[in-house]
């Protein structure tokens, strides 16, 4: 995991910033608008509990260094979170400005301003002064949960190795976030900051048997493995579709790494979650003429955030509601997808509506109907209990039913946001540190991390 990454110029041109950054003057004006609430609701709404008024008022006082360090203290991935967080339902959703019918403080853009100003002027994650510790921890997966866990453990002096099967670290931050929100290059820059703390990164596929070795070689293991591939589309004729059927995450990773620069004319995305919208918008920007999102229920049932849906409409995506794909036929001229109209009955079940089938001609089908859990991998970790494919943990410490294993992020929560993974990873790091601490340290600890007491 040491190769250099070069952004493809065509991808850069097709996926410019969705939200322009603040210029310094505008950032100060916006920072001054913040009321500096006491026990601010934005801070409580942030899964990583960034001290929002504190970092914002430091922007107002032209102390951007202090601002960025305030963010990093709570959230080591403060730069990427500032760009990918659904702030509308988090900090900005909690802003008291809503109470007086004013637009909330633009916390996300201010955070981005602080982080980018800091990093672009050579700022680093401040290294805490602490003694080195001998104990070592393996973090499996290199996504946000593992990065946050690794950074916090390293800050406490532990020896940490992050392992991932992919050639570049960062997990979905590098491979899965829409490029107009977070560039792969920016994700990798952030990972480099964590590497500079002294965290080791290895490209290593973890499979059956490997976990045994890890358990022998490391004092504790953090599972930040995320979820697996997109769930398979269970439709007659899928097997014949070949490369015209694409996994949404692979599709997104393909263009982000510059391997895919175009897509065929007619694209159908199945599912209406945030990933479905990322894939649909990407298809449009890669040159597709018609992009359709098929969803089996209605607009109000989609799991994508409202602003993602609005964004998709602006990009020219067509939504087709209450349609269930049932059969796919492949020919040289393209794919034919037969769908049945369905209604949701009072008990929430889908009921077919007779005589209202829809036939869609297309070239590419991208199912985005949720990721599968990594059953195979997780079942190798002996004693780690799962529930419906998710790792069961103690929420305050991240500890699993096998005390040497801790976990966080999508493999625990089933797929939430980057900031949730960061919070999980940090909580687990504090749990691990406490569990690995000397008996005195353990008895001094209250049982929960200090920031949860």
């Amino acid at each position, binding site marked *: 995991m040491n190769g250099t990454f070069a952004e493809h110029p065509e991808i850069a041109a097709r996926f410019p910033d969705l939200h322009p950054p603040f210029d310094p003057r505008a950032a*100060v*004006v916006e920072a*001054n*608008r913040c*009321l*500096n*609430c*006491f*026990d*601010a*609701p934005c*801070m*409580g*709404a*942030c*899964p990583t*509990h960034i001290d929002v008024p504190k970092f914002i008022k430091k922007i*107002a006082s032209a102390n951007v260094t202090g601002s960025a360090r305030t963010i990093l203290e709570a959230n080591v991935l403060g730069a990427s979170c500032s760009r990918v*967080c*659904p702030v509308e*339902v*988090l900090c900005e959703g909690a802003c*008291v*400005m*809503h*109470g*007086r019918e004013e637009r909330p403080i633009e916390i996300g853009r201010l955070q981005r301003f602080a982080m980018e100003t800091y990093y672009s002027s050579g700022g680093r994650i401040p290294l805490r002064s602490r003694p080195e510790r001998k104990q070592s921890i393996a973090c499996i997966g290199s996504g946000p949960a593992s990065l946050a866990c690794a950074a916090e453990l390293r800050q406490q002096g532990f020896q940490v190795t992050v392992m991932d099967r992919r050639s570049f670290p960062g997990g979905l931050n590098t491979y899965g976030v829409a490029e107009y929100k977070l560039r792969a290059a920016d994700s990798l820059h952030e990972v480099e900051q964590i590497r500079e703390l002294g965290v080791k990164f290895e490209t290593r596929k973890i499979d059956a048997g490997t976990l045994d070795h890890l358990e022998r070689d490391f004092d504790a293991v953090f599972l930040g493995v995320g979820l697996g591939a997109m769930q398979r589309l269970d439709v007659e004729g899928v097997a014949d579709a070949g490369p015209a059927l694409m996994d949404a995450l692979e599709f997104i990773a393909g263009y982000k790494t510059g391997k895919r620069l175009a897509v065929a004319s007619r694209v159908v995305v199945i599912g209406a979650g945030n990933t479905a919208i990322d894939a649909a918008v990407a298809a449009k920007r890669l040159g597709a003429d018609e992009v359709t999102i098929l969803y089996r229920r209605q607009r109000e049932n989609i*799991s994508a955030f409202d602003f993602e849906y609005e964004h998709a409409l602006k990009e020219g995506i067509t939504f087709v509601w209450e349609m269930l794909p049932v059969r796919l036929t492949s020919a040289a001229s393209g794919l034919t997808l037969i769908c049945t109209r369905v209604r949701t009955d009072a008990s929430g079940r889908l009921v077919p509506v007779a005589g209202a089938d829809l036939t869609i001609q297309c070239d590419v089908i991208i199912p985005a109907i949720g990721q599968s859990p990594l059953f195979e991998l997780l079942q190798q970790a002996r004693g780690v209990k799962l529930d419906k494919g998710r790792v069961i943990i103690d*929420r*305050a410490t991240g500890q699993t039913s096998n005390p040497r294993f801790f976990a966080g992020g999508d493999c625990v*929560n089933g797929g*939430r*946001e980057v*900031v*949730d993974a960061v*919070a999980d990873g940090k*909580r687990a790091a504090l749990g691990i540190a406490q569990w690995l601490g000397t008996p005195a340290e353990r008895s001094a600890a209250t049982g929960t991390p200090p*920031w*949860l*007491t």
Partner: protein
Amino acid sequence: MADLTTNFAGIRCPNPFWLASAPPTNCGEQIMRAFDAGWGGAVWKTIGEPITNVSSRYSSVDWAGQRMMGLNNIELISDRPIETNLREIAEVKKRYPKHAVIASLMVESKRENWHDIVKRAEDAGADGLELNFGCPHGMSERGMGSAVGQVPEYAQMITAWVKEAARTPVLVKLTPNITDIRMVARAAKRAGADGLSAINTINSITGIDLDTFAPRPMVDGKSSHGGYCGPAVKPIALNMIQQVNGDDVDGPPIPMSGIGGVSSWRDAVEFFLLGCGTVQVCTAAMHYGYRIVEDMIDGLSNWMDAKGFATIEDFRGLSLPRVTDWKHLNLNYKIVASIDESLCIGCQLCHIACWDGAHQCIHLDRVSGVVDGQVEVHAKPRLNGLETIAVTPIAKLDPPKPHVGPYAISLERIPRVDETECVGCNLCSLVCPVDQCITMVERSTGLAPQTWAERTASAADCAPPQVAG
């Protein structure tokens, strides 16, 4: 429709808004444009032997993203020949006979110099004279400006010289850079001045560049104290004007032209309520141009119409009797803070302001249980938001946070006032960002009004404790 025409110490003008003696009144061309914009009068940039200025000359204090809360200058009096200024005065008066043109004067402290300049200014057509005894920088080092205004005897002497020669009203402009502004005001009255104007600018250093360590405004690496003006100085000006306009020593108050941070009609009304007959404006015009006078006139007229005042004389000075010595304030008047829960947005600024900056009587205990009485804790406040594990909400999976109470904001975020401890200081209502959310309401103490003066007049209350035996 309100009548704004003004007769100030015998100087007539269409409205009470004058431009103060400053860069906006540097030359005739400017003043004619100002009159076209609606200004009722202008005090000419101080006329005297031409000086040489430095660059730069101005610096300002910005606050919370707003420019020029306060402005500072180290510019001296007019750098133009006396004859040029006088010729232009004549031209302006010819073209604008109904507008007030006041000549601001400053010459060396010799009787004949003052006699000469007074005669020339009046011959040019000035409607009145303003004696610049206030300029706090540069000129004062040469024995003029505030060097005169800071010594009542000098001010009286020169005012008397001017009065010997003057046929038009003479205004004395007071400096605030003095311990008691009334001393010079009294001196002016004793010398027969027809009116006063106050305040001139306040000695200041506006700031220092943190990279070069040079104070602002910087002149080749150095600076000098300047004169401070703009919105920041208005409260100081109002206080000094009240002191002078409420002072009967050496005769009743004489007409006062109010100066100091007047930026809008509202500011002007405050100066009128403290007895001013006109106001003079500089910083606001330097910031936005002469056009600001339009709203000053319009806003003042509309306010007067709404209040039923036909002329400024109808309300001039109404607030003067409301200012008194502290010892005459009613000690038995009690107000307490009242929070309108339906307007509260839950910012809790009132709580922390009361907790850290006042009397620890605004609590966050509506849900945990109301406790009145004096607080004896010395611990960091518990922060509710950080006690929980927060996740990005997914509508299908995460129920919304429980909402307590009937108001838009959940009750645990709405602070509560302990009236038994509230001292009625106002701080919470000042920091509250929502208009009318925190109001101060009167609570009867059941006691008759009593002032400190009254209380100490009775020997029993103010006598020192008696030592037994």
